[in-house]
């Protein structure tokens, strides 16, 4: 281990002009942000409240009983993965506290596989004509479910973006998208319990489309955060 006076043997160094200017513009007191875990807990609680309000407002789907245990497993997977993404997003806002690279890789791969599985592509289209492509139910679903899920995801996605902007994410686009995806999955859990459609095209394109849209918005938000951070005085 290197011993000797703090800072090694170089002694004291004077600030170069660029840093002097930056210091002049950044000498006001700041309050340290809450720890990532606390921020994640607050954000997660908020997202769950919004999800519960959404379920209460829309009402449970009438065929809940016949769907069985797998339905609740799917819901739990969405909620669990969504909360995990929100937690990883908050951690990524503090230098050195972000999740390890291996966790990010596993998260992306398992998340993608999870989303594919949750589409329920194995349910046959026949017998579910009211929501099949081109039907009146399809259009109703598009105009009803897509904006509803987007609106349900938006508050938590926005809160995630605000908390991220208050921090200092080193990968802002990725962090913005991850937070929005987490919020979207919680909204998707609410929609899964309230939307009666069981056609995979509806699930993939309408609900999956809403998830993809909000996630993309989160990425854009992250890009704007990154731009702002680069232009700070």
């Amino acid at each position, binding site marked *: 281990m290197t011993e000797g*006076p703090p*800072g090694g*043997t170089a002694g004291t*160094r004077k*600030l170069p002009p660029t840093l002097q200017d930056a210091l002049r513009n950044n000498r006001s007191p700041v*309050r340290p942000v809450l*720890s990532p875990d606390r921020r994640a807990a607050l954000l997660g609680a908020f997202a769950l409240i919004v999800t519960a309000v959404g379920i209460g407002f829309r009402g449970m789907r009438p065929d809940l009983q016949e769907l069985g245990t797998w339905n609740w497993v799917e819901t739990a997977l969405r909620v669990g993965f969504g909360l995990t993404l929100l937690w990883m997003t908050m951690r990524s806002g503090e230098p050195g506290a972000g999740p390890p690279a291996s966790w990010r890789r596993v998260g992306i791969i398992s998340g993608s596989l999870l989303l594919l599985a949750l589409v329920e592509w194995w349910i046959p289209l026949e017998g579910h004509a009211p929501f099949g492509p081109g039907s009146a139910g399809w259009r109703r679903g598009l105009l009803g479910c897509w904006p509803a899920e987007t609106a349900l995801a938006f508050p938590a996605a926005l809160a995630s973006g605000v908390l991220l902007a208050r921090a*200092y994410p080193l990968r802002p686009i990725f962090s913005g998208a991850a937070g929005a995806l987490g919020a979207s999955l919680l909204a998707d859990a609410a929609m899964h319990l309230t939307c009666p459609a069981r056609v995979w095209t509806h699930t993939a394109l309408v609900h999956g489309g809403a998830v993809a849209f909000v996630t993309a918005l989160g990425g854009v938000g992250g890009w704007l955060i990154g731009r702002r*951070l680069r232009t700070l005085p």
Partner: protein
Amino acid sequence: MDLKDNGSSQRPGDHWTGLMARYQEGDAAAFESIYGEASSLVERYLRRMAPANVVPDLVQETFLHVIRARHTYRPDSPFVPWLLAVARHTLLQSRRRFARRWSKEIGMDAYPERAAASSSDPLDSRRVEEALERLAPEQRELAWLAWVEGFTSPEISRITGLSAGAVKVRLHRMAKRLRAEEKE
């Protein structure tokens, strides 16, 4: 050649934690002290993985990020891993921007300076230096943090973004390989 993770809790610049807290309260002179004392550590770290001619700019950019991100440092956590995590990010950003130019410049010849002696035995520190120079850049980073600067695995995990388990496994493998090479 002793390549153990010494797990020492004593770190040069532990008082930087207090200085950073004072800077967060608005004491600009505290930041000047941090820069004066810690910039050499950041420079030593960056010299391991970047061409020598870009290191001064990277040091400056690192401390620019420290200024802008000062509100994300929490005084109840150690300062040095946070600082080196910022330095690492600065390095990776720059590497992504200038990848092609760096791939030509980075090589063993790009690191003419050697780190300060890590032990009282000059022969031992020379061996450690020679061992470091044989490693790939990512391995060199881990080895330098652990065996020259004496950071613990959790601290290295915080700096590099690897899990603590992955850090331990990689260090163990490196040490095993280097010892085997020394015996040959």
